[in-house]
């Protein structure tokens, strides 16, 4: 049974030019979304060091949301691609640590997509609420299976 009183805390890293502006725009449009999110502004999603994400989880975040510009739309040409590359790697590391996929999310949200920002935040909060507090001790089954496969193969 998931704890019904559990309210997750989501740490978000938003790029200054797209997703942070989308969040501002959501405010201007008075869109309502879940108050569980805490936004940290960076200039570009390319600035997001994987350590920031792991540190957020270590310090008690139940989920981490990364927001950047759509591919091709980066204010700094290609910082979002660099972010994506790191994210894919980080995702594997996170799985190994037992962090479920729904807790770590990368979304491209442009300045025009205030409505999408609302949807993404609400959706993420709902999914993490469902998962409950982050439980480090449970290793991810999929990863374990993969590890077994690799061991067998070698």
């Amino acid at each position, binding site marked *: 049974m998931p704890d019904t009183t559990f309210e997750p*805390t989501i740490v978000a890293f938003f790029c200054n030019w797209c997703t942070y502006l989308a*969040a501002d725009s*959501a405010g201007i449009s008075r869109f309502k*979304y879940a*108050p*569980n999110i*805490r*936004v940290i502004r960076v200039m570009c999603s390319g600035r997001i060091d994987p350590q920031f994400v792991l540190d957020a989880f270590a310090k008690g975040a139940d989920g981490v949301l990364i927001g950047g510009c759509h591919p091709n739309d980066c204010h700094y040409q290609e910082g979002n691609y660099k972010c994506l590359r*790191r994210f894919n790697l980080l995702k594997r590391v996170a799985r190994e640590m037992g962090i479920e996929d729904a807790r770590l999310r990368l979304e491209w949200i442009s300045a025009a997509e205030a409505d999408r920002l*609302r949807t993404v935040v609400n959706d993420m909060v709902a999914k993490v609420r469902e998962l409950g507090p982050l439980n480090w001790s449970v290793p991810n089954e999929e990863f374990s299976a993969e590890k077994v496969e690799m061991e067998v193969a070698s």
Partner: protein
Amino acid sequence: MFEQNGSVRIGVYICHCGTNIAATVDCKAVAENAATLPGVAVARDYKYMCSDPGQTLIQQDIKDHNLNRIVVASCSPHLHEETFRNAVAKGGLNAFYMHMVNIREQDSWVHTDKKAATAKAKDLVRAAVRRVWFHRPLERGRVNIHPDVLVVGGGIAGIHTALTLANAGKKVYLVEREATIGGHMAKFDKTFPTLDCAACILTPKMTSVKAHPNITLWTYSDVTRVDGYVGNYKVQVTRRPRYVIEDLCAGCMQCIEACVFKQPKFEDEFNLGLGRRKPIYIPFPQAVPQVALLDPEQCIQFKSGKCKKSCVEACGERHAINFEQKEEIKEIEVGTIVLATGFKTFDPARIPYYGYGHYPNVYTSMEVERLVNASGPTGGEVVLRDGRHPKSVGIIHCVGSRDVSTNRWCSRVCCMYSLKLAHLLKEHTGAEVFNFYIDMRTPGKMFEEFYQRLLNEGVHFIRGKVAEVTDWALDPTEEGKLVIRVEDTLSAFVRRIPVDMVVLATGLEPQDDAQEVRRLFNIGCSTEGFFLERHPKLAPVSTFTDGIFLAGCCQGPKDIPDTVAQAGAAAAEALALIDAGFVETEPNSAYVNEEACAGCKTCIPLCPYQAISFLEDRKVALVNPVLCKGCGTCVAACPSAAMQQNLFEDEEIFEEIKGVLSYA
């Protein structure tokens, strides 16, 4: 760990923003909570922090309480970061000892639960308090502004911008994609509500553009590359070949007369296919520049190489016609750019039940502009495609506007131009004219009066969204007519109104290539696809890219006076930059801590601006702060944390993370 920064004394200011924040966030509680945080010397809440008394409050506290760090929790930093940095600087502190917390756009305006919103504000303030400990004094860089300006788009917006700047003594490059400047306005007959002729007010301005010594006009050209940054843009313009050398052509049109096609045969784009032209042509009589162009898709010389080239013969000694002309690449340097790329009209074929393209006598409003125009394909005589003169006309409003299945926005100009067309059609043909509208929108000087005038002229107004246009006659009076089926919502019954001609008041849309243009210039679009202004009210012609401004309908639908006003504003914004001569830059560039740098060169290929070089003698990386734009991608990649970014240092962000997660 805090001791290393000496005695840190933080002032925290929580803004109520009237009730904008205070209605959802308990500002007093947030301030009281902040007062308990380490390093905080003063924590206050105040009604309007951005007001003069609010700013003075900070400055006074800096003196009285010996503050050396400031946190302001109010609106988005995109709105007031500069305001508070300046206030802090006036108070005698380095401006970058200030950090802003967004508790309006990203808190009070988006949440309803007061308790949760207050808790969030406390977390965000805590994060900022932890972060400012690590702020360091920074100096802004300066970038010089190249005095030349690029204006993209030669409609009325671009023309007015270019002339304003050129008259102020600035050198302007005006780039237009079509063969002539003038844009949509050149196609209009009269303008609402004054009914003065569009050509009479526009063509003198077009001529002055061509004649102006400060304007370089490049028509039939595209901007193909944009590099650089505010004050220092490097732009590549590609001039497509017109196969007529611009400097040699006198616009005498003898080549057109002499063309082997005796009759104009090809669809005339300027008249939207209602007229015909030859393969060599000038778009319209007042075109600027007065230079012919040749369509290689149609010219026999291009198709077979066996034309007798009577045009070349007619041109004679001038030798202006050159079948070998190639596209030409121009590289220019400008300091500022004004985008005035305009709009496109809605394609009514997307609404099949209005029959455009199916029934020949269904017209778009732009086509009717050409039909009633004295220099149009019919010389101003309204002749239908079947050769008849209309005795009754139905004008359908909001085609491709205010419609969830096409475009949701109001195109702002259609009600007024429909009134104008109703007047002109009645004047030209004496026909009965019916307007079918959802709401009449006439906000503007003399607009409502014009509507009243039309009511008195006997034009019929029926309130209702037209269901369909059909040629299916139910009784003899409808035979051979187009029947407009509509629910008259004022008299509450469904009507069938037979007319000879249907005019679709099509709405305004972003240009087809708005997305590509947006990427080219590194600016944003709003949801519907028009270019995004920096602030809808306070910076309506600026973009999020410094030095790039917007004018006219590329930013959103608007009429001619608004377009001209905006064009003037864009010119003024560019002038303000040019005359200041320089702009101060955000000091958020990356830098290398040489002691920690291992010389692994990971950062170097990551930089999209080639701002990082490697010092072979010292085996460390070096950032050129002029080239660095401050994205921080290299910082995130540095394995030894030797690369850091001003204002976004690792430790500042780690502290923010602790702060939002309630680490006291």
